[in-house]
């Protein structure tokens, strides 16, 4: 009854919502949360296909994606905190000092 299709469609839907959020919001933390949403959507697709093809490797991949996401969030939020301690806004459009 529960087809793999449903899970993949839900993963695609969540990924689309995350992508639109990452593109339209200018707050750096909001963009970060949208990236986390996209990562979770990909995780859901991986687990759905691991069940579909009866292989555990998909779930192990999700394990490593969670590890990488955790370390990425730690470093990224530390970066955001250290950048925006010196300024007062979290607007990413203000970060253009490296613009060629």
């Amino acid at each position: 009854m529960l087809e793999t299709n449903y899970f993949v469609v839900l993963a695609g839907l969540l990924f689309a919502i995350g992508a639109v959020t990452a593109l339209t919001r200018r707050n750096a933390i909001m963009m970060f949360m949208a990236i986390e949403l996209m990562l979770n959507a990909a995780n859901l697709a991986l687990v759905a296909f691991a069940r579909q093809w009866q292989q555990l490797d998909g779930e192990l991949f999700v394990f490593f994606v969670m590890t990488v996401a955790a370390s990425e969030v730690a470093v990224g939020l530390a970066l955001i905190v250290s950048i925006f301690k010196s300024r007062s806004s979290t607007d990413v459009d203000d970060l253009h000092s490296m613009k060629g």
Partner: protein
Amino acid sequence: MDAFLFFLFAAIAVACGINLVVQTHPISSALSLIGVMGSLAVLYLLLGAEFLAAAQMIVYAGAIMVLFVFVIMLLGAEKLPAQETRPEMRWQRPLAIGLGAFLLLQVGLALALPGMRAAPEPIDASPLAIGMKLFTTYLFPFEVASVLLLAAMVGAVTLTRKD
């Protein structure tokens, strides 16, 4: 029963996702993201991935999102002025919505194609089975992941030092 649980938690996940986009206050968006993580953990359980469901709750909802909430409160992000779009970037929002609609179209295409039958019985995804595979086939990525976590820890501490 499975289908009812799937549609219920899928609806909760999508509703929390849309709430993430719509909310102006970052704390509300963070709470919506926690809602998404929780409903995804239930969906992992429906797929038979019990270890991953627990790991999702512990790592994502219990550590990463708490870190997000701490940083949002640390930066005082709720005191931001209302977002006004700069005139030279006003084309970005319709373009983003157009690209999102195209992505949704592709998702709809996945619905239209013949569906894959779900596997009849769940695979053994207990911590024992995951551990067996993790420490034999995937030993090298496991060690690399521990080095990555060490690097992330050192980086986070270095970036936030006072001097």
